């Protein structure tokens, strides 16, 4: 085993000597690493991107949130629901069906029997409509947001950043991260986009912000 490692490292050093390539030096990062924007602008941009991916979008204030969650779950026809174990159980209080916290030690395959799942999210890039789920109590383990067919995802105002650089800066490299930009999709057949393959076919995003909810889009 270490034979192969030694051989490869030796080949690389020989190749370097042969190519006589100069070291690259410092990488110039002259691209945008941050963009000035207001929370309202980011929210508007994010909604535009999410709708473009054909996700469903709702808006709610923290006080309206339990009612909004209950409403989207019943609209989705869900009766059996799991939620990230670190999520406040009161958020699911208005839902009529079965809502239980996910048990991370259970077989993730059992989640196939669940209709919908509710989780929080860690950070979201408005410019690309990308929501990051960072594995843990409020975002759930990775399987939780993957196996059930409907994912209700909370995106809180303070977690929405403008672009990809600001988003990556907020991630913990040691935790598993899933970046979600709309529902699962494929363009493998004649380049025509089809939403919904193996991941959740329905992505319902609830934007949680303090302001009065505007007309609900989508």
């Amino acid at each position, binding site marked *: *085993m270490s034979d*192969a*490692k030694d051989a*490869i*490292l030796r*080949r*690389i050093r*020989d*190749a370097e000597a042969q*190519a006589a*390539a100069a*070291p*690259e030096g410092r*990488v*110039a*990062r*002259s*691209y945008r690493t941050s963009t000035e924007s207001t929370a309202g602008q980011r929210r508007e941009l994010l909604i535009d*991107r999410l709708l473009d*991916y054909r996700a469903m979008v709702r808006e709610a204030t923290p006080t309206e949130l339990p009612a909004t969650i209950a409403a989207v779950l019943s609209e989705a026809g869900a009766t059996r629901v799991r939620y990230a174990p670190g999520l406040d159980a009161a958020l699911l209080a208005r839902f009529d069906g079965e809502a239980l916290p996910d048990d*991370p030690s259970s077989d993730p*395959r059992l989640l*196939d029997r669940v209709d919908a799942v509710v989780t929080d999210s860690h950070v979201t890039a408005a*410019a*690309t*409509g990308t929501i990051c789920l960072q*594995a843990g109590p409020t975002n759930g*383990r*990775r399987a939780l947001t*993957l*196996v059930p067919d409907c994912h209700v995802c909370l995106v809180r105002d303070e977690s929405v950043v403008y672009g990809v650089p600001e*988003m*990556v*800066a907020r*991630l913990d*490299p*040691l*935790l*598993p*991260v*899933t*970046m*979600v*930009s*709309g*529902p*699962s*999709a*494929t*363009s*493998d*057949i004649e*380049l*025509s986009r*089809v939403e*919904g*393959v*193996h*991941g*959740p076919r329905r992505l319902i995003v609830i934007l949680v912000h303090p302001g009065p909810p505007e007309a609900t889009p989508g």
Partner: protein
Amino acid sequence: MSTFLGMPGHLRGVESFPRAAHRGLTNATQRHNLTHATTTIRDKRAAVVAELDDWQELRAAGSAIKRDVLARLPELLEQFEAAVTARGGIVHWARDAAEAGAIVTDLIRATGETEVLKVKSMATQEIALNEQLAAAGIHAQETDLAELIIQLGHDTPSHILVPAIHRNRAEIRDIFLAGMPGVDPDLSTEPADLAEASRVFLRTQFLRTRVAISGCNFGIAETGTVSVVESEGNGRMCVTLPQTLITVMGIEKLLPTYRDLEVFLQLLPRSSTGERMNPYTSLWTGVTPDDGPQEFHIVLLDNGRTRALADSVGREALKCIRCSACLNVCPVYERAGGHAYGSTYPGPIGAILTPQLTGFESADDPNGSLPFASSLCGRCNEVCPVEIPITDILLELRHRKVTEYPPVPEATMMQTLTQLWSHPRLWNAAAGMVALGRVLGGRDHTITSVPGFLGGWTSVRDVAVPPKQTFRQWFAGSEAQHLLTAARRGAEGEA
């Protein structure tokens, strides 16, 4: 594609590009599908790239980061290995396709499983991993929709991003009906219905299978993080649900820091699918308790990469992030199709990467024809997100080919022309004799057929007979002197 000299792999076809291209050029369905698909994706890419006012800066940074990786490979690989190991992953090293295949086979055998799932991966395709596993009695089930179409149709991929790009919906429906167990016999040709059929077919396998194999888009040296960038969710299934995950990664796939993802997660999706972001990107670091596979192996693959690294010009091809933008703008790829390249890597990037990974084995090596499979139009250079100078590398590989294996009689002709063109008196005399070629033309002064290697030219084009007088003869004559002097005088008169 074949096994060559005993080494498993899909890096060398059995015939030269012009011969293989003949089939693609005459396949009307494929031509139509490719034109439609590449035109669509070109337009999508152009639209999302135009949204970013710092696109060129991102490209420059992407190129610089990848150059830095190539310049510091040993250090970064060891850093990566240490980070993965510290987080509970196990790192393996493979010099070539056979060694990588043996490592993966042994790992699977140790689990006792004979069925494994696969995420679409260029590296595993390159080393013919499925075939190597099949020989060991292990079935590797492809889970990406396009790879599934290829696998069920006993076909080979023809595009990096959209491996079944050469197939249309009717063909895919027929492939599913013939090869997918339990499929609805009334399956329609609607892409949504075809995607649903694959969802149903694969769902039980995702929930049942205990070992998965993936490739890797970016490996982070600093943290040991590994990533899979995808659209369908089959990648998430494979890297999350099984007990054991085996990732195969080319040694050039590293990025120095986690922060570097901020560049590549902008460059890759926009260049590749023409989206602002792909639906899913999975990032994981070693093993996480109670989340995902509890056994994680990563195989670091050389398989010719160090050979490419040794070329000061050609090594730039190792910056490639497999976006396939160069394929989608290439007029040669669009017409000949991906199979003509005989390799896992088709299109412009394939024409420069494949021969560098394999070298030229002989004068007739099919890979020796790849650097010539380009009109050097340069569109690939412009769209490459990491600024690979593709046409420069094509020229370098052409140079290497004719130096290692001088073609007869071409090399002699080129030397003769050099003699002629570097001796002005000879050329003066010869240029005057070109008019003798007028005998080739008929009464209409048009040449419609010439023999030998020029015959390909006149098969679809007419050529005018050479002029009676060359420019240099005209310029030395009185007409030129009168005309040009009068013209200049006219201008001065006006002034």
